[in-house]
């Protein structure tokens, strides 16, 4: 019974949305890349780079929003590198993606140490603070969860709406989706598949980087080397879970985060009878289950991971 009551507490839902926020950004980023036909396994590294770049900007005296912008820019740069290798050159997206992750994480830490050679504890910044939205934040349960978060969390939801709108309601979105389904058709329209795919990967990578920056600028206030801790890989699964649709992917991110918020609370109830590893495992196991149930009927972008060479038949 107590286990159920947790679900009715506002603090649980606040935590769930907070945990979901970085996942939402990065999932949208991955989704945009994949809809254009490019699997971006650089996500984990790009998130690390974004987390560091945003934090460093603020630490160096920039304001928080400048930090977010710098993080997005750094993400887009790594996206450009990824896209340059995978789109015009048509290299293996798996290999390039893993390479980008390794490069971005090591380069990030290298830069960290160059900038801060002699620190005893990781320096802190003043992070984003919760910004309650008048009236809406007064609603029981939903209010605190959705309308008493930091501005970056609001931005995450805006990013979902924007992604959905661009993908389904604009010619640009149509072109992006077509590049992932049938690039020859895009070419026939006189559009550049290479250009669209590269743009999508850069935009998607920028979103991933902002997701990373959420961790250092909103969820926490300093940078740690391994703090992305596999969140990027989760987002790859969330895109599949969401059948490559922004709305469903958002649902997946919130669901995963809710499992995570739930397990830490449940851990306290059992009085140490159940090994803690079971709880830590729970969100992942449930995600796999959900993936099995939901993703079986998912239709993936037909040209995903297939490089496009102009004029090739």
């Amino acid at each position: 019974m107590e286990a159920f009551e947790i679900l009715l507490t506002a603090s649980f839902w606040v935590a769930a949305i907070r945990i979901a926020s970085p996942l939402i950004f990065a999932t949208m980023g991955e989704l945009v890349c994949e809809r254009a036909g490019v699997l971006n396994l650089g996500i984990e590294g790009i998130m690390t780079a974004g987390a560091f770049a945003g934090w460093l900007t603020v630490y160096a005296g920039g304001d928080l929003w400048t930090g977010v912008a710098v993080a997005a820019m750094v993400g887009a740069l790594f996206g450009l590198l990824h896209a340059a290798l995978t789109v015009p050159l048509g290299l293996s997206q798996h290999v390039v993606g893993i390479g980008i992750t390794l490069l971005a994480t090591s380069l990030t830490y290298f830069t960290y140490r160059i900038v801060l050679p002699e620190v005893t504890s990781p320096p802190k910044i003043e992070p984003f603070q919760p910004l309650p939205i008048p009236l809406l934040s007064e609603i029981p349960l939903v209010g605190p969860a959705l309308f008493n978060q930091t501005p970056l969390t609001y931005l995450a939801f805006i990013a979902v709406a924007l992604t959905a709108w661009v993908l389904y309601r604009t010619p640009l979105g149509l072109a992006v989706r077509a590049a992932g389904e049938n690039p020859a058709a895009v070419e026939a329209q006189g559009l550049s598949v290479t250009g669209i795919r590269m743009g999508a990967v850069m935009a998607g990578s920028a979103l991933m980087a902002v997701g990373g920056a959420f961790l250092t600028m909103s969820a926490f206030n300093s940078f740690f080397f391994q703090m992305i801790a596999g969140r990027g890989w989760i987002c790859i699964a969330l895109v599949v879970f969401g059948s490559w649709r922004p709305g469903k992917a958002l649902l997946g991110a919130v669901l995963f985060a809710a499992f995570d918020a739930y397990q830490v609370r449940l851990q306290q109830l059992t009085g140490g009878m159940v090994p803690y590893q079971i709880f830590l495992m729970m969100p992942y196991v449930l995600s796999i289950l959900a993936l099995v149930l939901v993703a079986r009927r998912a239709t993936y972008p037909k040209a995903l991971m297939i490089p496009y060479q102009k004029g090739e038949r």
Partner: protein
Amino acid sequence: MPIDRMNPFLPLSRRGLLKGAGATAALAAGAGLPNRLLAQEPIKVAAVYTVPVEQQWVSRIHKAANTAKERGDIEYVFSENTSNNDYERVMREYCEAGHKLILGEVFGVEEAARSVARDYPDVAFLMGSSFKEDAAVPNFAVFDNYIQDASYLTGIIAGAMTKSKNIGMVGGYPIPEVNRLMNAFMAGVKETAPETKFQVAFIGSWFDPPKAKETAFAQIDAGADIMYAERFGVSDAAKERNVLAIGNVIDTQADYPETVVVSALWHFEPTLDHAIAEVKAGTFKAADYGVYSFMKEGGCSVSPLGSFEGKVPEEAMKLVAEREAAIKAGSFTVEINDAEPKSS
């Protein structure tokens, strides 16, 4: 110089190695000078860490080594963030480069590290390890942060400060060095508040402050009004929710003046200084240096109350002073319990 030096996969140790290379060159140049007194030659010490030097545990070793370096006792180079699969290679490079004392933490590479020690019998190894010394590897000594004395005393203070009689504890992994301190802390709490309920959680990571923070939030939601801050992130949650925290290994009160009541501090200096003396005397041997982290050796202490001066009940502080004296005198021993602590 081993050709391996040029290996591009060398993890972030280039700075340390460059320093080392520079030091080697300087030493080579100095060796020709006749007025150089051999006895005052600083010992060449190299450290290999698997985490950045900001990590609490390693930061204490790093600090002690830098202190010894400033004193002129040692030359000190280090590699941080060395992954376990690289660990043995980096150790061997330092041995090849002529370092006389190797420091580090071999929790993930126990056997590999000992095989290096067997190959370099003239080099002294002082390594953080879950195991004990082995007579078969006479140049390999072990240590760990046996600061249960200080943890116990901070527990006494925590017990006196908790109003809800509910204490939250967030740890990384339940390994002996974590468990030992948690158990000693809990034993201390029971001295002043025997009916206290403990919430114990592990986050399965050493470096995930957002996760540690979320876990701490959950425990505070469940009624904890004091957090045992084993990981970065826990004190932040306590600060945001206006509850208290007890620090561990390092003193973080400066960052959280309204939150961190007191910390159990680890001092690596006695451990390192003892090893330096042994190496200098040529008597370094396999031993368990864990005892040099005990309070009576000066290896750990309770931080000053600082901003909480006068806010901790006096009887509790009296008990702390009394037990501290007894521990130092050897008439009171804090139990070393490496079992995984459980929520109650």
